[in-house]
């Protein structure tokens, strides 16, 4: 099983990605997906700008995915991370893990998201509704603690 990793500007289609990952594999009993969306609770945002480190982004997510594949018996694993301008309600990131049983699929997807948050070289900046460019989003200590659960 080779994890699929894509870094792209374009949107993705959850249903199509799950179907492609699970297709024709009779030992898949469980598929867990995580979709991360651009949130805007107070209608402050015009968009989030996602900057990334081309080359390292692919390499680092592939390393994290390989760790997950070594740790859980998976039949399929996918990570897509978008960059560029992403508007409220739009999709930013997708992780899919497929396995025979649900525990492994849940844990692998959860692990991949936690590590992606703390290790994948992406940075978010706010573009505000009033047209100005806001600050860089600060990293959360919560995210580091979440990743530490797995070590």
């Amino acid at each position, binding site marked *: 099983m080779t994890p699929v990793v894509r870094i792209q500007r374009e949107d993705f289609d959850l249903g199509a990605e799950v179907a492609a990952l699970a297709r024709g594999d009779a030992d898949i009993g469980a598929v867990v997906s995580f979709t*991360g969306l651009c949130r805007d609770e107070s209608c402050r945002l015009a968009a989030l700008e*996602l*900057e*990334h*480190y081309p*080359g*390292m982004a692919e*390499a*680092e997510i592939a390393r994290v995915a390989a760790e997950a594949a070594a740790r859980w018996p998976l039949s399929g694993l996918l990570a897509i*991370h978008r960059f560029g301008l992403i508007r409220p309600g739009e999709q*930013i*990131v997708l992780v899919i893990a497929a396995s025979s049983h649900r525990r492994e699929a849940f844990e692998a997807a959860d692990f991949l*998201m936690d590590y*992606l*948050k*703390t*290790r*994948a*070289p*992406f*940075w*978010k*900046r706010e573009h505000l509704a009033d047209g100005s460019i806001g600050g*860089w*989003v*600060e*990293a959360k200590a919560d*995210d580091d603690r979440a990743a530490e659960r797995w070590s």
Partner: protein
Amino acid sequence: MNQHVAAPPLKLVYFAWVRERVGLADEIVSPPPGTATIAELVRWLKTRGEGYELAFENEAIVRAAIDHTHAKPAASIAGAREIAFFPPMTGG
């Protein structure tokens, strides 16, 4: 011990607010002989002007990668082709 041999030119890349403070997305530099680790490279960069000083004001917060792999301050930069500096990641 070849730490005093001049290192070959090195590509540095910067991201997010590190990039903005340095004022460059990337540059080719020739660190002085003896610059053996990420921490030593940062120390030298901070002598190169206000932008660098501001970018690396809080050294503990700026992350580094050597050839697309995360690296600690003590990591050796020998043989590195590309070194990146950036804030803590906020993807996902």
